[in-house]
């Protein structure tokens, strides 16, 4: 396997590699990452040259960059980049055998009342979740408004100008090692463009129209809300998702042009073998609003710090984040707000729950640049610990170079309180019911922001987690 640039491949790859078909190459491709693999991914997708070049340069950046020196060094160091398939193969192939799906996952499906067909999709046993009917009717309405909502591959093919204008403008490949990786091998994800003044009332959900190829691994999402537009996008689902693809490195870029509004809700519940390393960032222009609603329930290690660059006056950013870590999980979550214009404001609420031997925390950055008077920001971090082996960390950084500001940060760590439990039990609740009530109260500010069906499922899932029946 070569890691050198493959030049003029289109002239002689038949000769060089003995076959003409990228798909066939990818079917047979070994694990590991190389310029050949990147070339074949790009050809299989019939991408324009600039995207192919972009991927190759990103691969060079990925190979040159070291792993972060911070974060969970033990888990990061355990990633074997050579032992991963970087391109999920054809959608026609099933990925997993139902018999291989862990029992605790199957049990959760049942307890959550997930229909059989959906169960098979979530477990990766069938490749496509058929919600065509629902999606179809939504799609017609959107088209009438001029809204583009499609997968990223189609977006690149059919809306090349818009995509190219904004592609990597928020997160360049050099940003960090995992953004470089995504930039080299991205596949799937969503592309959304909302025209000026259009307000999309219903939340757009990735879930209805994706297949396993698009679910996880190296999704790349780009959302542009033009001036005065607004949109709410939801990705993920509360139910656990089982996958054998253990490295996920997604990139999400949001651009909110003046006066626009974007809300991006994520509920992530990957199975406990997954490394979920995500770079998510938004540019909010004058008078724009961007909100990240970020729920981290699954995965072995999640490192994700949704960020908002407040680039125009009176832009506003919010991050509402919850992280739940049970034994064997590390949720290293947080948020970043960069105030680069006057009179911008931001709010971060982070709630984390560490249960048994789980580790959940907050890692954040608030920066107010010089000559940006009138900025207001507040950060509130609450950590709930359940069990003597639980661990939580808070690493909030604030760098303030402007004196006309209000910056407030507050963090609290507490144990699921004996006094509270005692009080609720004295009111007739069992210990389990009391604990659940306290936890639900704790995450209520987050659940309140979810569309109803998600909220209902979320509450059910927390109940299962608290019972300990999901492992």
């Amino acid at each position, binding site marked *: 396997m070569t890691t050198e640039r493959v030049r003029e491949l289109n002239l002689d790859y038949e000769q060089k590699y003995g076959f003409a078909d990228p798909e066939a190459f990818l079917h047979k491709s070994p694990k590991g990452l190389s310029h050949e693999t990147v070339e074949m991914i790009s050809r299989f997708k019939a991408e324009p040259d600039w995207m192919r070049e972009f991927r190759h340069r990103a691969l060079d*950046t990925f190979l040159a960059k070291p792993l972060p020196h911070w974060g969970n060094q033990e888990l990061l160091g355990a990633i074997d980049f050579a032992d991963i398939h970087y391109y999920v193969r054809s959608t026609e192939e099933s990925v997993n055998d139902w018999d291989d799906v862990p029992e605790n996952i199957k049990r959760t499906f049942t307890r959550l009342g997930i229909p059989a067909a959906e169960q098979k999709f979530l477990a990766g046993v069938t490749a496509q979740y058929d919600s065509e009917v629902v999606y179809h009717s939504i799609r017609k309405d959107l088209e009438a408004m001029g809204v583009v909502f499609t997968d990223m591959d189609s977006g690149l093919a059919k809306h090349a100008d818009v995509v190219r204008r904004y592609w990597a*403008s*928020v*997160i*360049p*490949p*050099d*940003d*960090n090692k995992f953004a470089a990786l995504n930039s080299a091998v991205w596949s799937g994800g969503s592309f959304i463009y909302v025209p000026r003044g259009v307000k999309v009332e219903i939340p757009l959900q990735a879930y209805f129209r994706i297949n396993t190829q698009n679910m996880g691994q190296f999704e790349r999402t780009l959302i542009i809300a033009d001036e005065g537009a607004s949109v709410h996008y939801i990705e993920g689902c509360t139910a656990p998702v089982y996958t054998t693809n253990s490295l996920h490195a997604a990139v999400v870029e949001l651009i909110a042009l003046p006066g626009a509004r974007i809300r991006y809700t994520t509920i992530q519940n990957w199975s406990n073998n997954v490394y979920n390393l995500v770079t998510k*960032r938004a*540019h909010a222009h004058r008078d724009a609003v961007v909100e990240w609603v970020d729920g981290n329930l699954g995965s072995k290690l999640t490192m994700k710090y949704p960020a908002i*660059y407040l*680039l125009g006056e009176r832009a506003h950013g919010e991050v509402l984040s919850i992280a739940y870590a049970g034994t064997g999980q590390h949720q290293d979550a947080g948020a970043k707000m*960069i105030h*680069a214009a006057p009179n911008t404001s931001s709010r971060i609420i982070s709630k984390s729950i560490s249960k048994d031997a789980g580790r959940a925390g907050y890692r954040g950055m608030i*920066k107010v*640049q010089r000559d940006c008077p009138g900025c207001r920001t507040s950060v509130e971090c609450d950590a709930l610990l359940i069990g003597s082996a639980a661990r939580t960390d808070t690493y909030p950084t604030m760098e303030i170079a402007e004196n006309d500001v209000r910056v407030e940060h507050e963090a609290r760590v507490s144990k699921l309180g004996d006094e509270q439990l005692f009080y609720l039990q004295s009111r007739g609740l069992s210990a389990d019911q009391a604990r659940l009530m306290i936890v639900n109260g704790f995450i209520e500010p987050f659940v309140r922001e979810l569309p109803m069906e998600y909220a209902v499922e979320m509450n059910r899932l927390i109940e299962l987690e608290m019972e300990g029946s999901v492992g």
Partner: protein
Amino acid sequence: MAWTSILPLAEIPVGTARPAAVGLDRLLVCRVAASDVHVVDDVCSHDESPLGAQELDGSVVTCPRHGARFDVTTGSVLRSPAPVGIASYPTRIAGGWVEADL
């Protein structure tokens, strides 16, 4: 105007940028063309660490750590993850030296 001598012009090959320290200031002297020199802060506005000596890309300087880019003629930011531009100073060449008004 208070001109401060920074570096001899001859020490800066055409098409490159060289760091220089003046008191507490860390500066980057960028020679875009033989007689076209610009002085900016040698600090990336993203992580506040040096941009460092490098080959220029026309009049663009790139941060080696995360790829932020700046136009040395104005200091304005051209690419994320830098959120804002960097300070640039009026520059002239006098007596074989690059001088800036800091």
